[in-house]
């Protein structure tokens, strides 16, 4: 039988899950705003500065400032997506057409169940990580689930029954296969390094990885090539420029979402940014020390709730900086040609990550042996 304790735990989990979904979705929404603002600034424009809420907007100074930075724009965008006329082209495959946006969004949101974002200090000074489910194989879970996100795009492209979306779908699947290998291979040396013989860590948990960087070098400094490959693959997996092949407005109109409008398009949109948010968070965790302060420096914050807040805040700052980096790259680099994308993935990144892996295998073995001999 379901007992009370289980229900309590379940309720709490559901509450936290709900909270996290809201936070990530808000982040995604405001990433859109950030994208528009940053792109505007980089192009000598001012970006959205018109939307205003009735009462908030009329507060002197604050209201006009908030309006100026477009803080209400995501609300308006969301509402617009909701209230727009729902158009379904006559030639689509209805079931899959409706299913596709959901398939795109669900994996993006599922991955955050194993995403730690800080640590909670007990009175005793012991800490537990802030995470919905501390899976031993967290990183694998994230890789697995996020790789399912491509089905949303493939489905959308296929069910639209139209040329450009179809091409977008095909490109997306090919791109996913090409870069997932490099991504996985770039992570292997990390785990080899972290759980090398002698260390207490023997799992693929993200919490352990983040904690291993406390007061020691960030893994981005230890393994810069892994970080670079992972970052490039991350760009490709999230379909961000310069890898936005499935969408590429210039040659595929809108790619997989050409035939989508109103809220269904909105879901695709949010899913894309949710992927970016989660991707940034993962990169922060693995390579940038997570919620820990700076490399080789012990966390300066106290071991109580203030420390929890500061740590989480620090984690968020890192994540947001990475999101900014995503946007920055988008408005700096031109798009690759499709064959260049494939070329880069298979002939550059894959051999490079293999070489990287072999190098670290040898290095770790040598370190292990030299530690054992004396």
């Amino acid at each position, binding site marked *: 039988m379901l007992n009370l304790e289980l229900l309590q735990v379940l309720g709490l989990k559901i509450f936290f899950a709900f909270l996290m979904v809201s936070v990530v979705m808000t982040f995604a929404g405001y990433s859109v705003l950030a994208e528009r603002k940053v792109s505007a600034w980089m192009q000598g424009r001012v970006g959205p500065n018109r939307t205003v809420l009735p009462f908030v907007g009329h507060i002197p100074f604050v209201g006009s400032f908030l309006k100026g930075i477009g803080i209400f724009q995501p609300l308006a965008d969301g509402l617009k997506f909701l209230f727009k006329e729902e158009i379904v082209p006559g030639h689509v495959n209805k079931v899959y057409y409706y299913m596709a946006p959901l398939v795109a969004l669900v994996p993006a949101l599922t991955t955050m169940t194993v995403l730690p974002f800080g640590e909670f200090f007990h009175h005793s000074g012991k800490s537990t990580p802030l995470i919905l489910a501390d899976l031993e194989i967290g990183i694998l879970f994230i890789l697995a689930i996020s790789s399912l996100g491509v*089905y949303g795009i*493939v489905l959308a492209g296929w069910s639209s029954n139209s040329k450009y979306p179809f091409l977008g779908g095909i490109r997306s699947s090919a791109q996913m296969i090409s870069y997932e290998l490099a991504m996985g291979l770039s992570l292997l040396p990390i785990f080899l390094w972290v759980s090398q013989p002698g260390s207490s860590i023997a799992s693929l948990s993200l919490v352990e990885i983040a904690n291993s960087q406390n007061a020691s070098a960030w893994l981005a400094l230890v393994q810069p090539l892994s970080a670079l490959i992972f970052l490039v693959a991350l760009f490709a997996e999230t379909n961000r420029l310069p890898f936005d092949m499935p969408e590429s407005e210039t040659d595929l109109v809108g790619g997989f979402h050409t035939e989508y409008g109103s809220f269904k398009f909105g879901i695709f949109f949010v899913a894309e940014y949710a992927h970016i948010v989660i991707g940034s968070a993962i990169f922060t965790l693995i390579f940038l020390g997570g919620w820990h302060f700076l490399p080789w420096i012990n966390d300066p914050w106290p071991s109580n709730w203030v420390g929890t807040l500061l740590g989480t805040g620090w984690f968020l700052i890192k994540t947001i900086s990475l999101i900014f980096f995503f946007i920055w790259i988008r408005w700096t680099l031109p798009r690759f040609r499709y064959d260049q994308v494939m070329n880069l993935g298979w002939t550059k990144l894959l051999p490079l990550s293999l070489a990287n892996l072999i190098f670290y295998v040898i290095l770790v073995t040598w370190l292990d042996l030299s530690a054992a001999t004396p």
Partner: protein
Amino acid sequence: MNLLDLLFFFFSSLAAGGGLLMVVSKHPVPAALFMILSLVGVASLFVLLEAFFLAILQILVYAGAVMVLFLFIIMLLDVGPDGGKASKIRILSGFAGAVAVGLIIVLLLHFSQQSGFGLSSNAWPEINADSFVNGSNLTFSTSVKNFGYGLFTKYMLPLQVAGFLLLAAMVGVIILSKKFRIKKP
């Protein structure tokens, strides 16, 4: 019936139903999608067995990579409904289906004769926990470390053989698909 049972029935029906729908789907794209559904169901069953690593690998390798490749190929070749020679295959698949159904009936009969339809636990062979990683001081668990240890000690040979098999298959595919220029005398 507790939650575990409920989940088991849900996920197993997902796996079985997905498989069935995959077989009966006319169009290859939905068929592939149903296969993914089935794989997810199987992975969930692994989770229920607390074999998290296996479940994740199932998703990562099959649903995440192999099936994406499948879909890519299907879409690239633009295979429509009844793209193949369905009429010839129909007899064959009917035969295969009949054999499969027969096998299932035989199995069910075998188990039910042993234990009735309750399928009590003694119908299943006992898993010897210690037998798994003998030769090491690690106890049996589904953790990654133990899994890896087992793979690289006791099951080293099968692993390498499987690896070579896959390599041979890959080389074969490359040779078959590559057009070699025939030198004319």
